Every structure is written in C-alpha cells, then in structure tokens.
C-alpha cells in the first residue's frame, strides 16, 4: 500500500517535470521527423526522385523511429547523469518501495513520452503530406498496440544504455548506438524490399526497430490493388518485440541495481 503510494508519487513527479517542459520535449522529439516527412514525403516525390507511394511506406517508419527515440532519450540521458554524478534519483531510491519499481516507473514514463511523440506524428503527417497522408483505419487496435510496444522497446533500450554509458562517453555512445539503429531499422524502406540484399536484410532483423516499423506498416499501409502490403508476419513481430522488452528490461534492471546497490 505504502509502496503503491510511493510509486504513484514518483509517476506524478515525472508528469510534473515533463509537463513543465512539454514544448521543449515536443520540439526535441518532432523536429527531425518533421523534416524527414517534408523532404522524403513532399520534396523528393515533388521533384520526381521518389515514388508518391514512398510517403505512405515511410510514414509508419517515422512513427516507429520517433516513438522509440523519444522514449529512449527520456530514460537514457537523465539516468546517465543521475548514476554518473547527480544522484538526484537517490531520494526515490530511499522511498519505501522496491528498487525495481523505481526502474519500472522510469521505463513506464519513458514509454509514455514515446507514445505521445508517436501520436503527434499523425496530425503532423496529415498537415505536411496533405493528400499523401494515407493510413488504413481498420487495424486501429493493432496500431495502438504497436505504438505502445514500440515506445516500450525504446524505453527499455534507454534503460540499458543509461546504466551502461558513463557521462564522459555520452556523445560518443549516442553516435555509436543511434546511427546504426537509425539506418538498419527499416525506417525508410520496407523489410520485404531488401530481398535483393539478403545479408543486409538479415542484419536488420537484429534491430528491434525493424519489427516496430514493420508492425506499424502492417497496421497503417492500405492494401494496394486489393492486395495487402507485404510485411513481416505479425506474430513474429509481436514475439520479437515482446522478447526484446522482457530481456532488455531484466538486463537493464540488473545493471541498475549493480549501479545503485554496491
């Protein structure tokens, strides 16, 4: 009972802090996807360098990427600073609740940030792409689940990174982890289209973002000419994302404990 109260108070603390910085948070999360949508969805097709369908295929990738990165950033950066030297989280660790609840709260809140960032892509996409904004509406439940699951994956990866990275390595690690994540995650291309580059297609399967992007494609891309758009099978997507969340959370939680209880 007391632990539950503590948990809610910690959630409320994060809500207050994020609420106060909501505009900067949105700017940080949405600046990059906004330009991606504009250049790849509007400019390139407009000058004939990309197919008009490209925006439809890329939009789910952008939703996945935005949600995952927003969730990750919400967890990693504060955690690196906290565990490295600020120790501001100590006050929550000294609250009467199990330490893993504090970790779980971090993940939950990161996922909430990711979900919000992903969701805002929809109105933003409609505004930027205009007629090019095409999303099927008959898989709305899958869509919602995928948005949440994607944010959760981002959040647990953020936890793991946050417990591993030392403050002095932070910018290097962001480059080393973000860049490959970004480009091997099937964000800008559907997985099926990689069939000609088999080795790369296999590599992309190691990246959780691939499953998130494909899952969102499954939920968002309408059937073309009566044929559903081919994606990775939904059950494999759910399995891969589910396992990623579980395993990464357990590893991150373990490392977190090692950092705060010596």
């Amino acid at each position, binding site marked *: 009972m*007391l*632990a539950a*109260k*503590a948990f809610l*108070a*910690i959630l*409320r*603390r994060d809500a*207050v*802090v994020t609420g106060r910085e909501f505009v900067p948070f949105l700017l940080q999360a949405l600046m990059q996807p906004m330009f991606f949508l504009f250049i790849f969805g509007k400019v390139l097709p407009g000058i004939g360098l990309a197919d008009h369908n490209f925006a439809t295929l890329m939009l789910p990738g952008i939703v996945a990427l935005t949600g995952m990165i927003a969730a990750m950033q919400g967890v990693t950066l504060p955690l690196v600073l906290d565990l490295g030297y*600020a*120790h*501001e989280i*100590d*006050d*929550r*660790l*000294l*609250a*009467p*609740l*199990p330490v893993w609840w504090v970790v779980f709260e971090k993940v939950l809140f990161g996922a909430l940030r990711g979900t919000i960032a992903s969701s805002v892509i929809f109105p933003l996409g409609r505004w930027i792409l205009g007629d090019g904004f095409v999303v099927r509406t008959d898989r709305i439940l899958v869509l919602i689940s995928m948005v949440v699951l994607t944010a959760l994956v981002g959040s647990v990866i953020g936890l793991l990174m946050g417990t591993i990275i030392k403050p002095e390595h932070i910018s290097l690690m962001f480059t080393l982890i973000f860049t490959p994540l970004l480009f091997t995650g099937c964000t800008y291309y559907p997985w099926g289209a990689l069939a000609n580059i088999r080795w790369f297609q296999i590599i992309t399967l190691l990246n959780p973002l691939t499953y998130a992007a494909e899952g969102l494609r499954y939920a968002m891309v309408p059937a073309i000419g009566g044929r559903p758009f081919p994606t990775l099978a939904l059950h494999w997507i759910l399995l891969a994302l589910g396992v990623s969340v579980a395993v990464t959370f357990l590893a991150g939680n373990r490392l977190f404990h090692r950092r*705060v*209880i*010596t």
Partner: protein
Amino acid sequence: MSDPEQMIDASAIHVSQLVKRYKNSKSNAVDGVSFEVSRGEIFGLLGPNGAGKTTTIGVLTTSILPTSGSASLMGVDIALDPIEAKRRIAVVPQQSNLDRSLKVREILTFHAAYHGVARKQRETRASQLLDELGLGKRQNEKVNRYSGGMAQRLMIARALMHSPDVLFLDEPTNNLDPQSRLFLWERIQELNTRGLTILLTTHDMDEADMLCHRIAIMDHGKILVNDTSAELKKMIPDGTALEVRAYATTARREPLAAALKTIAGVTKVDTMEADGELLTYRIQAHCADTLIGPVAQAVLSAGAEVRDLSIKQPSLEEVFISLTERHLR
C-alpha cells in the same frame, strides 16, 4: 531487560561484526565493526577519509550490501526488510543530491509523498520546515541558485519531511562557512532534543566534541574506541596539564625548573617557549587541577613571578593521534 529482543528494541541502531569488502579490493573497507546507538542519542563516527565511515552509513541506509555481519534499525533487520528500514530513516549525504528539476518547496512535498504523507500534512510540514531552516522566502526557486549552506539546510528539511526515527548525516558541515556551520550545529542539537536519533560522520574534532553524546573513532575500517568525549580524553595518560607563564631572569630558570619537577604528582615538565625572560612551562600530571597552589608557590619560592596559570584539557585530536600515531588532517 534480560529479554534479548527487548534489549535490541531499545536501541535505534544495532551493528554487529559488520564487514564490507568491495569488488577488486584487497582489504575490507569496513572490517568487523560492532556498535549500538540508543534512541535519542547523537552518535558520531569520527575518522579520516577512507576510514570506512561512509561505507558504514551506506550499509545502514540500504545502498551498500554488507559482505558479512548484520545491522538492524529500530529492531528492523536492514538486509531482510530494507523497505521497512527506509521508511524509518532519512539521509543527508555529503554531496547535494537535490532534485534540480523541481522547485525548492516541491522537493520537500514530493519527498513526503514518496513516503506516503498525506497532502495536507505535507504542505503544512513543508511550510514549517522551510521557515525553521530560514528558506521560506526562497521556496519557489529552483535549487541551482542556492548556496552550499542553503542546499545543506534544504537537504535537512527534506530529511525531516517524513518524520524519520533515525537521521544520518554524512559530513554535514564539510565545506560550509563558519556561520552556516554554527547554524547547522544548533539545528542538529535542537532536533535531537525533540527525540530524533542522529548518526553523523565527521572528520572535524570540534564538531564531534560539540555535538555527539558518544563518539566512535574509526580508522582502516575498524572502530578503535567508542565512548563519550570526556571518557575518550581520559585515555591520554597524564592527560591534563597545567601551563604556567612566569617571568624569570636567566639565573633563576634552573632552580625554577627543578622546583616544578619536585612537586608531588608531577610526571613531566616541558619548557614550551621563551620570550625574553617570560617563560612558559607545561607541567603534566594525572590531576593537574590540584597543582595550581603548589605550582604557584614553587614559582614564587624560586624568585620568579607568575603571569598566567591555566589547565589544558586534552583535545580529541590528541586522543586520535595517540591511537593512530598520525595526524587526522
């Protein structure tokens, strides 16, 4: 009182044969420490940096797992029930760990909320503590603008928000200006008179002497002695000394020194300094205060003049040096 459980219950902190060895370390940071702190006591862990004070506090506040031994707090075994232990304690660390994303007042109210204090109560208590610690006027700022002394006071206010049974202060006045130090000392004593048990670490002898009912001197992970300040000072053999300043011409110095040495009870006479014909002698004896009369007489009968007579109590620093054979700072 013969029931052992009752006896444990009467103590606020009970530490038994505590050992902590960090990974990849060749020696124990805490090496078989046992002590007990009664309810309502201010207990000090005194020792140089690296003595094992902060590690001991770490174990008692659940952030460090002991390698062996046990520790309990208000009858709660810390290893078995860390959550219940956390409910009963508050910690003021060496370095600020204040939540810089929150405003000052919120730091207090959120802390109380983490501990399940009801909204109305946490607002009342926050106002009261902010006023008591002189922070009322700047409660809506963020901590970035706070000075070291203010941050320290805020951490103490935060610690008190959930009415803990035991307060841990890790080097509470380190790096503070003399004014803030005095202010904190007063607050600490005041809190204690209201019944709060306090365990503090320090490497400041004056602080330990001034605040603590009992002091454990630590070095290399071990407790060397554990007693009241007065008892610790008695450990210095021939601890008290009488200092006499006398005006004597060169010819009279020899007979004066000889006369002082022959006084019954005197164990040692040192000439401390000479300023022309004004000499200072340090006369050591088991009970130096009984020698004021005889010393004055001896000076007069040697044909010299007494200018000043004073009794020197040994300081904790001398106790420490005699125990460890090295200086603290």
